[in-house]
């Protein structure tokens, strides 16, 4: 029986290289398709139904891991990565096939022998293997995406251009009449987002609301004092202006 495989990698030279190596190590294997991104890999798998898919993890658009999630029960998967410690550890732990770039002949031979053995015992990938890969990938991707959900860039209109300010460089946000004032070391600008929206989108570890109309970047606080009326007064680093902490938010500054 002739087995078919596809190779997916965004770098043309590397697809060619793997193809040549495979031709030496496993001449009977037919490379029926080469894909330059995840989307065309999925299409190829759909139309050509190969037995094996060599998938580069890092591809533009749909990544190799995403492709794998869709095809885990349909064909056998060999991941390829240049450098991805987490992924490699996970593959190692779960005995998933993978290759690291640059691919060596010895390593490829090992993988090929394993694939041959697996294919002989059952041409279809076992169902539990598919489940396992899905689970593994969910874990891996969850890991990579964790903590990236907070607002990181403040986009402000600046003449005809949209300027991007990293959130961590903002000293504080102050509610204005219609807009919200963004104050940084370099100056002030206006955004449409309200203090309320900002308080929900910014990382609450790094930004504290200290007043109905003020959100401050915690890392920019120099010290906090008390005014005569019992409110808190914040002094910011490298700034002369002070901010008022209303009673409602004073608990944030209680000694730990």
């Amino acid at each position, binding site marked *: 029986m002739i087995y078919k495989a596809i190779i997916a990698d965004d770098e043309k030279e590397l697809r060619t*290289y793997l193809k040549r190596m495979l031709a030496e190590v496993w001449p009977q294997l037919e490379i029926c398709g080469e894909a330059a991104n995840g989307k065309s890999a999925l299409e190829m798998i759909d139309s050509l139904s190969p037995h094996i898919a060599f998938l580069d993890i890092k591809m*533009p658009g749909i990544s190799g891991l995403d492709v794998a999630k869709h095809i885990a029960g349909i064909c056998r998967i060999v991941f390829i990565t240049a450098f991805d410690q987490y992924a490699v550890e996970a593959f190692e732990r779960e005995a998933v096939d993978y290759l690291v*770039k*640059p691919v060596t002949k010895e390593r490829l031979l090992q993988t090929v022998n394993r694939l041959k053995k697996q294919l002989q015992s059952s041409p279809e990938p076992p169902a539990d293997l598919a489940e396992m890969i899905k689970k593994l990938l969910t874990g891996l991707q969850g890991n990579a995406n964790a903590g990236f959900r907070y607002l990181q860039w403040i986009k402000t209109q600046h003449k005809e251009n949209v300027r991007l300010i990293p959130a961590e*460089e903002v000293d504080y946000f102050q509610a204005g009449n219609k807009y919200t004032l963004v104050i940084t070391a*370099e100056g002030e600008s206006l955004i449409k987002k309200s203090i309320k929206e900002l308080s929900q989108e910014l990382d609450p570890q790094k930004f504290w609301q200290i007043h109905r109309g003020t959100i401050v970047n915690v890392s920019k606080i120099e010290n906090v004092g008390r005014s005569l009326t019992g409110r808190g007064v914040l002094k910011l680093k490298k700034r002369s202006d002070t901010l008022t902490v209303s009673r409602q938010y004073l608990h944030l500054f209680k000694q730990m």
Partner: protein
Amino acid sequence: MMEEKYETEFIFKYWLKFKNILIDGIIIGTANTTLALAATIIGPFKNFLPNFIMAHSMGIAVSLAILFSLLILRPRTWKLFLIIAGIDICFGLFIGLQISFIVLRYFFNIFLNWQTQNLGLQAIIAGFMASSVILYFLITKIRLRYRNEMIEREKIKRMAVEKESILANLRMLQAQIEPHFLFNTLSNILSLIDTRPEKGKSMLLDLTKYLRTSLSRTLPEKTTLSQEISMITVYLDIQKIRMDERLNYKIDVSNNIGQHSFPPMLLQPLVENAIKHGLEPKVDGGEIYIKATEDNNLLKIEVADTGLGFSDFDKPGVGIINVRERLNLLFGEKGRLIIEENKPHGVRAIIEVPINDL
């Protein structure tokens, strides 16, 4: 003026601490006992007990008066502080002496008053001199401690600045070489050796050049913009082989502008960002455009890409933070990094540095 304000503030804080009050109390107590002894020997009244009681009650009264008026009035300048202390001394001596008369009368059956052998006047004069000497001694002690603390604080501040600059340098070096980039490039070279050895060779040379600059532990103090641009060209040539038709680039830096000196590794992270976050993850790829202009003693270098751009929730890379930190260290407020949306898509990063300071 500012200095003075902090100094009196420091005295205030100093006497808020129980330990300091205790130590100074012991000093004052010892001084008063000595004073009582001296008065017994040379004074008009050769009985130690009344002298002891008088010295201590005056001492305690003066100390408490100074302590409390300091707590309540919090003088901001030395002049104010000395006026208050002077009033406190007169007032404390008077009250203290009265109290000592009462104590002596009720507990020891010794009857004294202001007229007894001119006691009042002499005690007040001796007390005033003693109080001034003690106060002077204590203030000198505190001021010394204040100076030491200021020196210490200055030292810590300086060390913090130094540390910051070292860290910024270190982070910049660490952030340079991306393992993905390195191993993918090596794979490409390995492949090209078989198929197109000439191309493989030139890629290997480019990589060597790139690594030599990126890995060097110490950066050259001064480089020109042209040198930095040639480094970037090497990097982009490597990426061009990897990404093929997905990457195009254009560099527009005239020889004239290229002669300006420019800090090394300030532009490179922006170009790497453009590839890593903009073009590499984009299926169709795109273009990088680097342009330098000179205006009003300001050197302005622009790195624009037509890549994916930043979504609001993408974390800014270390590259951008490092570049801004270094600009700040090198040029203060005169160096700027501006990041904008490129139209119709992508990111434009602009570095502005003063030409004179380069």
